[in-house]
């Protein structure tokens, strides 16, 4: 077999008829709307979370400043958690320019994925720290009203729960989140190596 045989066979492939330009452009608009809706949804859920917690903060009328700080930290934690979802990170980090040549595109894509990986891990760490700190501060006011024994019990249980989160839950969640990205990075590295 020579080049011309290959070329002749190659060109014999029956191609699928192309979709009409109008249909294609409709898809462009659809994808655009989808991105916009995702951002909008994230924004709405963030706003609702804040309002909800502010309302709670308003009605419980705390006497200590620690309670308010605690609530603020918990709000911040929830915001971070929402932002840690990969799809949202994807929206926030600019995608690699696809008109670059492959040798420039692949390293850029790898860099972006690594950034997502790092950001995801950091966000999760911050989430757990903020949540734990917020909870412990929030409890001060209410445990002060309890007897010493009950107060100790309340703090003991909460601390145990936080430790369970930190030692067991957090690594699992991070690992699960990272698995997809780590694999993507590994595959992209493999492609990059094929170029040299």
């Amino acid at each position, binding site marked *: *077999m020579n*080049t011309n045989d*290959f*070329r002749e*066979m*190659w*060109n*014999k*492939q*029956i*191609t*699928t*008829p*192309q*979709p*009409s*330009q109008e*249909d*294609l*452009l*409709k*898809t*462009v608009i*659809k*994808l655009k709307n989808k991105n916009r809706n995702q951002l909008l949804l994230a924004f709405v859920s963030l706003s609702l979370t804040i309002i909800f917690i502010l309302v709670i903060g308003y009605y419980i009328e705390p006497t200590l400043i620690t309670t308010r700080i605690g609530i603020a930290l918990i709000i911040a934690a929830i915001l971070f958690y929402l932002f840690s979802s990969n799809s949202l990170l994807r929206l926030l980090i600019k995608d*690699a320019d*696809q*008109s*670059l*040549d*492959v*040798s*420039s*595109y*692949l390293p850029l*894509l790898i860099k972006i994925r690594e950034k997502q990986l790092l950001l995801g891990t950091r966000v999760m760490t911050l989430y757990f720290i903020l949540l734990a700190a917020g909870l412990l501060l929030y409890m001060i006011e209410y445990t002060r009203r309890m007897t010493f024994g009950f107060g100790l019990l309340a703090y003991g249980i909460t601390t145990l729960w936080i430790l369970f989160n930190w030692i067991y839950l957090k690594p699992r969640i991070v690992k699960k989140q990272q698995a997809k990205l780590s694999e*993507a990075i590994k*595959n*992209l590295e493999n*492609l990059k190596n*094929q*170029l040299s």
Partner: protein
Amino acid sequence: MFLLTGKSNLLHMYMDFEEIYKTYWNKVFRICMGYVNDRDWAQDIAQETFITVWQQLPKFRNESSIGTWLFRIAANHCLRQLEKKKRYPREEFPLQIADQQETSNDENVNLLYKYISELPEIDRLIISLELEEMPQSEIAGVLGITESNVRVRIHRIKEKLSIKFATYEHE
């Protein structure tokens, strides 16, 4: 006044795109087909490619030929497929006509595409662009590697393919 210029630019872009779309659809489809050897999937990648082309067209600056630019987008879309094991749900893309169409390629054609899709990813792109009669300097431009590297690799890939065909005939 601004509105007018804006509109005529959009019209120009629409017409430019129309021409590009007509000229390159088959080529892009075949390249995607060489990459994945699956008609539906290839069609999806081809459509994704042209969606990007439409989005990026205002940024195209004639620094490279339109072909090099477009095939870079197609190549990058192909390479990104390994990130998406889950493919787009079909209904997100227009056109289901292809499903009704008969796809009676002759056996050698099917074999060629099958063998190409079994090559390492970058080699699939190199040989597909070569079979599309793209000059080796432009293939080098799409991939960002040297022309001599392209030449050597094309030679090796063709040898590999010939061996595969020869072994098949002997069986």
